[in-house]
């Protein structure tokens, strides 16, 4: 059979990622992602609050298993995500370039993402030692404080740095044993969906990371007021949104993090303190018999 010069292009369907599955939005709505020059790139799911609700259910379901894993194993899985991303570099560079990055910028961003995953992979079983304490107390108790994951984190990824920002948010959240729902950058959602495919092939249990695409203004109230969400992250400087998040988050005392000043491509874009933003401190009083006998001060 004769081959023609022009092959029919096979375009990817960009779907969302909930509970380890790739469904379409339940709302049946979509929007068109396009480049600055107006080139149509893809039809993308315009998620509704019900998709968010389903994602929270998935994240809550995955929390017990993920937080219960050995920290070392979480580190291995983060490393695996980095490996998978490394293998699919070209695809991400291509998508970033479609979304108006230059080749050099795109290559740099993908490399930074891989390095960032490796960075947090290393921290998985180390930050606990750094941030836990043995506390001096006046009674015969061994008293210590350790960080524990807060639970389900709802994050709205930065609108700039569509890949690096996303990875830099997700990595510390899951490194600390939390599960999350992330809303991808509205105008540049391609890499987020492809990153979900990377996660899906990286031994990461379904539901630990859930990725939605859609409108920030539509979904942000639900990110802030869902009672089964334990922390919420917002990366823009919009003060009215920040105020609204603070107010709604107060209903169940969510942890609130605003990362509007963070430059993700710089050194300050990675730190164990990002892990600690989603940790609770548990203090234990353990009775001991004869504290003086061991000649210990505490």
């Amino acid at each position, binding site marked *: 059979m004769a081959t023609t010069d022009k092959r029919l292009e096979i375009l990817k369907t960009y779907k969302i990622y909930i509970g380890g599955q790739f469904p379409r939005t339940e709302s049946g709505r979509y929007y068109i992602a396009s480049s600055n020059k107006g080139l149509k790139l893809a039809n993308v799911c315009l998620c509704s609050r019900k998709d968010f*609700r389903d994602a*929270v259910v998935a994240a*809550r379901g995955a929390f017990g298993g993920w937080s219960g894993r050995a920290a070392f194993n979480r580190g291995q899985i983060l490393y695996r995500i980095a490996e998978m991303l490394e293998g699919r570099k070209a695809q991400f560079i291509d998508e970033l370039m479609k979304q108006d990055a230059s080749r050099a910028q795109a290559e740099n961003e993908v490399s930074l993402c891989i390095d960032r995953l490796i960075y947090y992979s290393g921290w998985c079983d180390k930050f606990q030692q750094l941030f836990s304490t043995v506390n001096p107390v006046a009674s015969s108790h061994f008293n210590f404080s350790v960080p524990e994951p807060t639970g389900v984190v709802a994050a709205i990824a930065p609108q700039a740095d569509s890949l690096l920002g996303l990875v830099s948010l997700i990595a510390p959240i899951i490194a600390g044993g939390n599960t999350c729902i992330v809303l991808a950058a509205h105008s540049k959602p391609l890499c987020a969906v492809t990153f979900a495919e990377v996660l899906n092939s990286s031994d990461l249990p379904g539901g630990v990371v859930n990725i939605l695409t859609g409108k920030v203004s539509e979904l942000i109230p*639900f990110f802030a*007021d*869902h*009672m*089964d969400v334990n922390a919420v992250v917002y990366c823009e400087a919009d003060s009215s949104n920040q105020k609204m998040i603070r107010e709604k988050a107060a*209903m*169940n005392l969510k942890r609130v993090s605003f990362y509007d000043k963070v430059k993700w491509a710089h050194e300050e874009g990675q730190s164990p303190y990002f892990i600690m933003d989603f940790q609770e401190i548990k203090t234990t009083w353990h009775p001991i018999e004869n504290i003086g006998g061991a000649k210990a001060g505490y």
Partner: protein
Amino acid sequence: MIATRMIPDFSAPVHIDQVGVEERASRFTKRSIKNESKLNGLMLALNMIDLTTLEGKDTDGKVKQLCYKAQHLHDAYPGLPTVAAICVYPSMVKTAKAALGNSGIKVASVATAFPSGQAPRDVKIRDTKYAVQNGADEIDMVISRGKFLQGEYNFVFDEIAAIKEACGPANGGARLKVILETGELVTYDKVRKASDIAMYAGADFIKTSTGKISPAATMPVTLVMLEAIRDFYYKTGKKIAMKPAGGISKAKAALHYLVMLNEVLGEEWMNNEWFRFGASSLANDILMQLMKQRTGVYQAANYFSID
């Protein structure tokens, strides 16, 4: 009554259109329900629940706790209905009866060597009498599925009739629910036949499952049973109640069942006299949905009582 009624020949084959039933059942899940109807539906579903604990490890404390929950479903939401009944093992009937006092909540007890039903008839009758005499308002019996599958329909019929008698006014009087355990009957034909046998033998309720076997209640199986009730009603003029049990844990599913009930049997059946949900975790999900409707905010399980 039974003597004067035509009892059909149960050995005659029954044919249920499997594809049709499944198609019809799936349609009920696609109705659009507006907010106010949804609220009423959720309230009604809550009021139809048989709050259940049927574990080998049940203790007096567990049953008392469940009875307390039945009376205080969610105190932060005033004006809620109570559940219909508490469903326990015979040994817990006395405890439940005392804990519920005059709250109006009924005590249902499983009996007849629940869940397998593999015991001699006199043991089953004693089991039943024990529960009734301890104050059970309702008895949930299991049929002998083994005998049924062997084709010994008369045995199953006689057994149900005997248990019905044990539930009679002589022992205190209780409504009889007959559990078919549809997961073990496998086909819709057999479910329909077992439903007919149970109703002609004197069941007040027919119930899908024990909750110990998977699959438990499904929409198509419940549809087959509801249609059996409908046909029985047209033939005899006697209303029979329905109880799907096991596997219904979400408010949305409960609403689907109510839609089905309304469209098959109509409004007369839309109350807890004629329809029940056998469930343990359904109540909390309904409460979460009710709170969502009231506050506009999605709820978290840890603000509600433990099941």
